[in-house]
């Protein structure tokens, strides 16, 4: 079975600074990889997803993620954060050979933006 580890429960960065949120997964094959974001009192929204091709995938609002197969990682990055990026970010993995019901989420990383 697959698993996802987000090692940082909370990350604090200053507005305008760069950001990296870490995600490592465990799965024997190549899965679909996702980053979802949950703004306060809202449901989750897709930021980006990856299956194949260029290992750096672009998402909404200036976010990108890099798939590094050798490290089983899919870290999320942003060059310059804004206060509106304050939210909880979830990394998720889904085996390509199974249904979307097998989507496994990490525990989430809360991003706090300092003025």
């Amino acid at each position: 079975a697959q698993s996802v580890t987000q090692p940082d429960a909370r990350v604090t960065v200053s507005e305008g600074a760069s950001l990296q949120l870490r995600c490592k997964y465990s799965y024997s094959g190549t899965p679909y990889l996702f980053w979802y974001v949950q703004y306060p009192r809202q449901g989750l929204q897709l930021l980006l997803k990856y299956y194949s091709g260029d290992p750096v995938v672009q998402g909404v609002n200036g976010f990108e993620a890099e798939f590094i197969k050798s490290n089983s990682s899919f870290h999320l990055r942003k060059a310059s954060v804004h206060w509106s990026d304050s939210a909880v970010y979830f990394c998720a993995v889904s085996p390509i050979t199974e249904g979307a019901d097998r989507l496994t989420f990490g525990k989430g990383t809360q991003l706090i933006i300092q003025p």
Partner: protein
Amino acid sequence: GGIITQTPKFLIGQEGQKLTLKCQQNFNHDTMYWYRQDSGKGLRLIYYSITENDLQKGDLSEGYDASREKKSSFSLTVTSAQKNEMAVFLCASSIDRVSGNTLYFGEGSRLIVV
């Protein structure tokens, strides 16, 4: 675009009570899901439905029932509410069950057991 509407936003019930959460989607998606979100634990799948009148158990189905009488709606019932079940319940839908499809989520319903 579409929207997923969950009702109620807050559901307060007594221990042992049967409580029902409702979810409506206007995406015309085939597959719908119910997840439970506990603080610091990520999301765990309770039930999902591939199409109207279909029900499939997720990893956390014990203590819950579900109903999909129409394509656009998916209900979740807590059969006997317990205080350790206080959490946020998230409904989601996807165009179908194929892996890699984007899930679209509602805003959540918070269950409070007194």
